[in-house]
């Protein structure tokens, strides 16, 4: 089964998603290209 609409599949480039930094700034995922990237999507508690 392939990815649903809006989802990326293996081999696809990640869209330019903006994330917030703990300091209130922004980081664009595309800025992290150049090295392999391990993204751990977690649940923040506490």
């Amino acid at each position, binding site marked *: 089964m392939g*990815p*649903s609409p*809006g*989802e*990326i*599949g*293996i*081999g*696809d*480039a*990640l*869209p330019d*998603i903006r*994330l*917030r*930094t*703990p*300091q*209130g700034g922004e*980081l664009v*995922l*595309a800025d*992290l*290209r*150049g*090295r*392999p*990237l*391990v*993204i*751990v*999507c*977690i*649940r*923040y*508690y*506490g």
Partner: protein
Amino acid sequence: MREANGRFEALSARVIAVGTGAEFQARRLMDEGMPFPCLVDPDARLYRALGIGRLGWRALLMAETYASYWRAWRLGTRRGQVTGDWRRLSGVAIMDAAGRLCWLHRARTVGDYPAVARLLAEVARLRGDAGPPPRG
């Protein structure tokens, strides 16, 4: 992952954590010594792009869900304030240097994370210096 960060760095990889919660929670994790950036995805755009789902009734009925809570409790973890989308599940994605998705794990329930050894092996495979992937 905290303890293994140096091994990812040795493979020239970068690790980031992303959550849908609040910035103060990400900041606290980093203040407590998390060695990689902890970021916030308030609208779960990254989660949706990766197809990481939400906790459903089926997962709530899985023994694995409660086993995960039990393991965390035994390790001393106490659940605090839940912010963001409390039903959003976890996942791990590995991107290559060009930003392409190379490997993806979507959690089936709470606490369903792949083994660090598996992640290291997948990153090593990106560099072309690893053997066959480990099972699981």
